[in-house]
């Protein structure tokens, strides 16, 4: 069941209606049935696998709680991790090799389950006694497709909280859903109309078209994923459940580390807590073990480099077992490492060389540089093969030279554009550029409590005009058809 289908709308209305009028003790079970029904649509085998893996986690987590032996606790955890990671690898490798479709939300629910198991092992939370509630945590339908990856300690208690009809929350949720639809259907899917052909067949496009497609993709992936998150957060909000946001103006980040604190935040914090920190502790202990001169105290840079590069490479592989994703993650790790080891010298230079009056322009230069790095790395994320990625990267890097050369030609800069873009598809290109501007506006509106804040400050008439405008824009300029969300493939 596609989240943007009429079937899903009917399903959602039925769930919301049932949830509102059902007695409190029934509500979590209603959500569980809804989640199971939603997941069941993706295939009975995948459904059975999900059920089996939840059962294993339930048994392992209660096992951890029952025993006092640290060794036994560790075995329970390792067995659960083995099953979860095995599930991830077991599906990802054949999917990457034979271009198969992954089970719906596999990477997301596996990460949720791992965080639950590790938190139980660490004693951060108590294991859930009710297996149905654990099942609901994993299969909560707004989250199961593409997150956000919420921790059990934060989500499960909310299922048990008394639901009260909250007008503000419901309208806030509806606004978020509309906003998410606008981002996905109007912006991301329109941008996809230009990016998909270029990434599918990069050799047949001139460098101007490639440059624009790479830029468009940067916005497409943001609009697509943040659109999904808005819809998920909005649906959960209507049923009175708070789920965390995944984005906080990532393209306004002044550095790569800041970008990762603002992009796919629930994944970033997951990676930090369950991968980066354990790896850093492991490397630190290893160095400590072998070093007689307490050299480890001066090796924090090296530990950071190892940990962050490995974490980010694994993050790349989480998206898919392909060279392109691995290189994408690896380069992000390298950039993070570079940012870390040069942070002091950069700060020093900044203090020395940048006068106070130039602080703001310098900030924008940093934003632009970070955005450029991230955009160039998206090439690896999107390209079909590593050869395609290198080719696209070369063309984008050589673009300024091509632009310079084209200026002396007959057609000028237009010679760098694909013919159909400036001919038959010009109106679509204009709409896309308007979308990009819209995207920037959305980008700047969103941080300060986003939509709700923006609307609530306006006069009632203007507010209603905006509501109508958003719906009418979605209807008339949206790209309809079963275009999946980018992150549902992971």
């Amino acid at each position, binding site marked *: 069941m596609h989240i943007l289908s009429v079937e899903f709308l009917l399903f959602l209305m039925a769930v919301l209606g049932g949830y509102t009028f059902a007695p409190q003790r029934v509500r979590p079970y209603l959500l569980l049935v809804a989640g199971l029904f939603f997941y069941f649509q993706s295939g009975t085998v995948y459904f059975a696998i999900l059920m089996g893996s939840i059962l294993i986690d339930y048994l392992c987590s209660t096992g951890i709680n029952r025993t006092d032996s640290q060794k036994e606790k560790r075995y329970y955890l390792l067995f659960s991790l083995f099953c979860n990671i095995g599930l991830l690898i077991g599906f990802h490798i054949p999917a990457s090799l034979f271009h198969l479709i992954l089970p719906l939300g596999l990477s997301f629910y596996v990460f949720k389950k791992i965080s639950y198991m590790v938190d139980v092992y660490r004693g951060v939370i108590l294991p859930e006694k009710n297996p149905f509630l654990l099942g609901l945590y994993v299969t909560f339908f707004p989250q199961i497709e593409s997150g956000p990856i919420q921790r059990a300690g934060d989500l499960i208690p909310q299922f048990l909280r008394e639901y009260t009809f909250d007008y503000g929350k*419901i*309208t806030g949720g509806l606004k978020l859903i509309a906003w998410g639809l606008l981002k996905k259907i109007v912006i991301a899917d329109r941008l996809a109309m230009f990016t998909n052909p270029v990434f599918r067949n990069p050799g047949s496009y001139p460098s101007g078209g490639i440059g624009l497609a790479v830029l468009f993709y940067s916005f497409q992936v943001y609009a697509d994923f943040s659109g999904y998150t808005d819809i998920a957060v909005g649906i959960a909000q209507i049923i009175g459940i708070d789920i965390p946001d995944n984005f906080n103006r990532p393209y306004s980040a002044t550095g790569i580390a800041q970008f990762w604190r603002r992009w796919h935040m629930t994944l970033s914090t997951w990676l930090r807590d369950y991968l980066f920190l354990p790896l850093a502790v492991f490397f630190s202990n290893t160095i400590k073990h072998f070093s007689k001169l307490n050299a480890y105290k001066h090796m924090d840079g090296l530990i950071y480099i190892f940990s962050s590069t490995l974490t980010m490479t694994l993050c790349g592989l989480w998206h898919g077992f392909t060279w392109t994703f691995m290189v994408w993650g690896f380069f992000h790790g390298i950039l993070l490492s570079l940012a870390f080891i040069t942070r002091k010298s950069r700060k020093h230079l900044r203090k020395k060389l940048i006068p106070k009056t130039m602080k703001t322009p310098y900030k924008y230069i940093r934003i632009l540089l970070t955005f450029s790095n991230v955009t160039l790395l998206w090439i690896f994320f999107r390209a079909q093969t590593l050869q395609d990625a290198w080719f696209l990267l070369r063309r984008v890097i050589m673009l300024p030279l091509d632009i310079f050369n084209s200026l002396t030609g007959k057609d000028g800069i237009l010679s760098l554009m694909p013919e159909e873009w400036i001919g038959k598809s010009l109106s679509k290109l204009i709409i896309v550029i308007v979308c990009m501007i819209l995207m920037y506006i959305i980008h700047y509106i969103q941080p300060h409590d986003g939509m709700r804040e923006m609307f609530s400050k306006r006069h009632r008439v203007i507010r209603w005009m905006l509501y*109508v405008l958003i*719906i009418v824009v979605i*209807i*008339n300029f*949206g790209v*309809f058809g079963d275009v999946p969300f980018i992150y549902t493939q992971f």
Partner: protein
Amino acid sequence: MKALILKLALLFILVILVQLVVGHHTFEIDSRIDSLDKQLKEGIDTLYLGDCTNTSHRKWERDRRTLAYILERKIPGYKLGVLTFNSYHMDIYLEFIRYIAKSKHKIKRVIIPINLRSFSPSWDRMPQYQFEKEKILLKRGIYALFLRAFYRPLRLLGIDWYTISREEYLDTPVFNGTLRCGKVCDYNRIYSKKYSKEDIKGKILLFYMFSLSQEHRKIRSMLSIAGIGHQNNIQILFYITPIDYQSCEEYFQGEFTKRINENSSLIKNLLKKEKTAVLDLSTALDSSCFTWKDTFYPNEQLNISGREKVGEYLSLFLKEHN
């Protein structure tokens, strides 16, 4: 909750009202209909409504002049307008004729090809050949306004204008004469690179070997076109497009030409009753006039020599009925 429901209802009404205004303007206007309006304004007196036989279908063909281009040069006294699309057929022609009849810019005559393949189940029932959106666009009046305004939101709700689903299409029976020979899906290896003699024979059977009935919806559309032509003083000139019957005969010896002649005769007789002119070119050209190697089965796609000859026939036909 009452307040919420009331506000949502109000929002719904407002959206409908705005959509009534906006939807009409954002409905994508088909460039071909734009082109028709432009040509009508320019004062054409003759309109050629064409299909795939109008254009060149081989990439390497040097002389790519279209049939309409050739015809235009053979009839210098006429102001010829052209509107063609590869898979156009009688249903969409009917809407065009209705549209033209209601236009304030009057034209004298319309030339319409009758492609026998268009009556076959594979063409007649193909979902993407129904042109429902274009039919809406060609309608006039309040109904058309409403449809244009709500075309997108209704499609969004899953109300599709493709009256035939893909499954229904693939399930359509195929006939050799009146004998049932399976379904469309049994013959659906159109783009296969490796094809046998049987595959080719299957395609010919699918496209041409049916026995045409006067109840066929495209026959009814054809007769409606003739009727509208008479009512509005627009001379309708039909011609049955040539088929590479010589190549097809290799697969259905004696049978193929016989079936084509039967089907053509039915069309001619019906149009004769309607007092509408028709030129039968179905078996007028030999194999050298066709180019169908890319599609692997013999059909009606013409090379430049074929387009030249049909252009010549049509020019004479026009002069004869002037």
